[in-house]
């Protein structure tokens, strides 16, 4: 355990992040990059971008609360130190996505009301399931919920958004690239640290599987809310973009139904693989209405 945890030290984090892929960035992107005029000048596009970004802020606020809350429950110093780096990563994500809301025209005075207005209630419930475990000081369930389920979800959503924005909005795509690199590290810690703890505490498996099932239910409900309904249909026919290909789907031309399907299938596939690695059996949730 000690050798693998050495890869998650503050020193390693310093070399990888501030002195690595975040060097010379401002709020996660290059200093001269801006939101494209096609978003800023069109009320519908701007509102859609705000709605998407609010979802990211809500998810990252949950991750910040969970990672900081788990530090005091961690059973060893190396895990505490890793979670400290994750706390800072999540705070940075909150900051860069909040900054994007400001860049999209949300004012500081209206920030919380904007978040309340656009936050998906199923995403809020998803967060509450996790934060209940954290508040109870349940390190094992907390790390599975945070570093495998929540981070696994974030990882795939960010990857999809990054692929879809690479040509259309390089500023947002660059912001997402840095967060994806962070999420990859967080998922790696979850998989590596939890496997041995699950083996030591097999009695916790059933409870953790129930938590995963509940979180997955709310996640699929968020996807359904996000891709169905007239608000989510494209306002104009998009131009096909080769670089927007993600898991066999061209995101620049895919219908909302196709996007929901590719995202859900990708996330669920990743969940199954990652949970199996730590000795947890994926539980299929009932289908959201």
């Amino acid at each position, binding site marked *: 355990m000690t050798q693998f945890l050495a890869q998650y*030290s503050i020193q390693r984090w310093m070399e990888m992040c501030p002195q690595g892929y975040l060097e010379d960035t401002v*709020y996660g992107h290059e200093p001269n990059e801006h939101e494209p005029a096609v978003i800023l000048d069109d009320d519908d596009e701007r509102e859609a971008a705000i709605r998407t970004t609010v979802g990211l802020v809500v998810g990252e606020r949950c991750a*910040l609360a969970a990672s900081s*809350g788990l530090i*005091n429950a961690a059973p060893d*110093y190396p895990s*505490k130190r890793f979670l400290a780096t994750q706390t800072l990563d999540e705070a940075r994500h*909150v*900051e860069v996505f909040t900054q994007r809301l400001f860049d999209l025209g949300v004012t500081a005075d209206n920030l919380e009301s904007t978040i309340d207005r656009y936050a998906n209630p199923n995403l809020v419930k998803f967060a509450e399931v996790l934060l209940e475990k954290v508040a109870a000081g349940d390190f094992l369930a907390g790390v599975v919920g945070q570093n495998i389920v929540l981070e696994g979800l974030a990882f795939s959503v960010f990857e999809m958004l990054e692929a879809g924005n690479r040509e259309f909005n390089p500023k947002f795509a660059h912001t997402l690239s840095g967060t994806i690199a962070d999420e990859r590290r967080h998922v790696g810690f979850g998989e590596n640290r939890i496997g041995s703890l699950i083996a030591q505490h097999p009695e916790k498996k059933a409870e953790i599987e129930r938590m995963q099932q509940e979180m997955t239910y709310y996640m699929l409900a968020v996807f359904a809310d996000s891709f169905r309904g007239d608000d989510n249909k494209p306002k104009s026919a998009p131009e096909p973009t080769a670089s927007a290909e993600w898991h066999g789907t061209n995101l620049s031309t895919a219908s909302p139904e196709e996007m929901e399907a590719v995202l859900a299938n990708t996330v669920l596939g990743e969940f199954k693989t990652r949970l199996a690695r730590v000795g947890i059996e994926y539980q299929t949730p009932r289908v959201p209405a």
Partner: protein
Amino acid sequence: MSVVDEFDPHALAEQDFLDEVHSFQFWFDSVEGYLSDRPYGRLETTVDEPIDDARRERLITTLCNYSVGETAALEGAAGLVQLAPDRNSKIFMATQVADEARHLEVFLHRLRELGVADPEAEIERRAQPALVDFKGALLDLVAEGDWQAAVFAQNVVLETMEYTVFRLHAANADPVTRDVLAGVISDERRHAGFGENDLGRSLAADPSGRARLREIRTGLDAMVVGVFEAALADIGAPAGERSQLAHEYLDTIERLGLT
């Protein structure tokens, strides 16, 4: 880009100042200056000097107790992320969590360099009771959800103690320990600044909080004195310097009107 070098944040309006100095971006630009190319807080060009057995023993005890203090600050700051009343304070506390974890890591690393095979066990063996009590008192305030009192105990009392002791120690330390302490001291200054600023504003808005914090301070005083005495004896501070350090600590308390 270096925010620190290019402009003075104190020239900003109050809310803009808070947005700036409590941000991840500001932290990022700040630490870049003094932590780049210093693995485990140590310049690669700094050469370790031989330390005799008695001095090495004292240094190990000192570093074990610094680790207790940093663990208290790490766990305290992690709890304070949850309690923070606004976005800026939450993000600042998250940067402090990473700072405290780094301090713990560099002290553990230095202990290993000094030949301590199991630093965690050694810390438990050498921890000063007064410091362990202080840690318990701080974490109780955090568990009670008392933001103001916990910020006072952590970012004013604990950080001022650490800042004071580390500075004195750095002046007389071996070259490698001095390098390590230099980076830690820069962080502690930022943390203490946050504490004074946050409490200063909340006490100006509601002066009745002073009486409550005075009471908390009275409860912590015996532990603080115990921690100071043991720490200054371990680092071999002369008696004259000890009273000067006590004054520095009391000055901070006085600035907040808590004497």
